[in-house]
């Protein structure tokens, strides 16, 4: 497999890996490093890649495991929090500030979720995976995925409503 072929396989989902890593590791540098690591691991075993039924799912599981290991290891005791810039369009500055502020809350709230809920919410609501895919990726029962997802969504709603009513960021 040449480099171009490899990139063609990997390109469509590398952003997903990165976002998953970032969801778990929070810091974007950490997430970049993790993604790079995963891609290099994939590259190293590119000969075996044809054997995997679904390279994307495989890479996703790898990312998940890698990040969880990272989190478990002591080194990551001092993860940095990195703020991303949310840039987008045609709303007025006031509105934009307001929206990006409360949108930012959602990210903050998601940071407080347990890892399992984080991952399920990430995979379902951001990456649009099906329940079966999520179950396979996270090695969970499909019903457990549903329960976790519901719990995660409700927590986000609850905390978001709290913030809205108190107006405290």
């Amino acid at each position, binding site marked *: 497999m040449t480099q171009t072929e490899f990139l063609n396989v990997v390109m469509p989902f590398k952003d997903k890996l990165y976002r998953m890593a970032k969801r778990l590791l929070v810091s974007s540098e950490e997430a970049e490093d993790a993604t790079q690591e995963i891609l290099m691991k994939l590259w190293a075993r590119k000969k075996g890649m044809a054997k995997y039924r679904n390279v994307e799912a495989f890479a996703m599981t790898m990312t998940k495991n890698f990040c969880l290991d990272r989190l478990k290891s002591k080194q990551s005791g001092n993860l940095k929090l990195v703020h991303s810039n949310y840039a987008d369009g045609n709303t007025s500055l006031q509105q934009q500030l307001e929206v990006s502020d409360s949108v930012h809350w959602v*990210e903050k709230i998601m940071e407080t979720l347990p890892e399992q809920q984080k991952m399920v919410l990430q995979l379902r609501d951001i990456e649009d995976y099906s329940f079966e895919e999520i179950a396979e990726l996270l090695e969970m029962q499909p019903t457990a995925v549903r329960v976790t997802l519901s719990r995660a969504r409700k927590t*986000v*709603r609850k905390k978001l409503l709290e913030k809205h009513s108190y107006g405290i960021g």
Partner: protein
Amino acid sequence: MELDSIEKLLEKYFEAETTEAEEQVLREYFTGGSVAEHLKEYSTMFSYFSQAKEERFTKQVPLKPRVNYYKWISVAAVAVLIFGIYFGKQNQEQKEAEYAYQQTKKALGLLAQNLDRGTQKVAYLNEFQETKQKIYKNN
């Protein structure tokens, strides 16, 4: 989209019973401009989700084609081995030659010594000759 059905979908959404298509409907409704006042809070959630989707991995990954070091290491090892055998053999041959030379030299030395001794002994024959001459002259 009817407000009523949106509310119903939302309820299902929080129970995690919505299908992907239904979630798509919700997402479109909440990221679109006209969200009902009492549902405004939820739009943050959905707009965050669609924003989060836009994040990109921009770092370049250095993908070096893995050089097969083993191949070259074995080539080098074989070369070294062959050289070693070649020079080792040469060295040994030289040593053998040296040994043979020493032995020959020793043998030749021995021969010379013995020959020397032989000629010394033969020198007595001259004595005999001289004596014989004397006798002849006297006669």
